[in-house]
């Protein structure tokens, strides 16, 4: 299950989507909107996204996770639009027969989502706002023809 939505994120359906009867552990990550960043009070966040490509890239991350870890299920949901303090912006669920692999794979998936999925956040403070520039995604090497 890979979802981009303007609605509040519900972990229940995501966990249900990744869990199968051979699963002994589901690692579930919540990314939550915090009230400060670098000492500055944050009022709320605003997320922008390239929706179709965001889904494509979330699936690509899931493929990487499956290639690197013995997991049986991977899913992710990201919220877009305005998010208030305490709301969930990202959910990642990874299912595996055992917990060690589930934790490691979930950690990897969150890192990769933040590196390559085309989603952006703007912090809005009392006295201004700024789009946060995070990671520059990897681009295939130049070739003479493409």
């Amino acid at each position, binding site marked *: 299950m890979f979802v981009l939505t303007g609605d509040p994120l519900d972990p229940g359906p995501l966990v249900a989507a990744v869990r199968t009867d051979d699963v002994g552990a589901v690692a579930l990550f919540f990314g939550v909107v915090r009230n400060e960043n670098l000492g500055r009070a944050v009022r709320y966040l605003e997320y922008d996204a390239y929706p179709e*490509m965001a889904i494509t890239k979330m699936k690509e991350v899931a493929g990487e996770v499956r290639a690197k870890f013995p997991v049986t299920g991977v899913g992710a949901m990201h919220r877009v639009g305005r998010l208030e303090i305490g709301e969930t*912006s990202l959910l990642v669920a990874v299912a595996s027969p055992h917990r060690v692999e589930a934790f490691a794979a979930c950690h990897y998936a969150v890192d990769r989502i*933040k590196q390559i*999925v*085309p989603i*952006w956040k703007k912090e809005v403070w009392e006295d201004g706002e700024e789009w*946060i520039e995070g990671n520059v*995604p990897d681009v295939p090497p130049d070739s003479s023809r493409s």
Partner: protein
Amino acid sequence: MPTVSLRLYAGLKDMVGARDLDLRLPEGATVGHLRERLGDEYPAVRAMLSVLVFAVDEEYVPSSHLLREGDHVALIPPVSGGSRCSS
């Protein structure tokens, strides 16, 4: 003279003031040429050009990628999905 459709996001969209732009490029233009052209036409975005990447058909493409008539090109500033916890 291919015309490509550009889609802008986040800070870049705010700087230019538009989500979508059409740009006519010389025959044989690549993503690298597009990057230069953006700097010429929109001086406000010059500071961001070095970290901007481009996507065609939902895939990141290198500077050498040849642009064709009707291509939809997404201009991707550094991404910042998720929360701030691990950065």
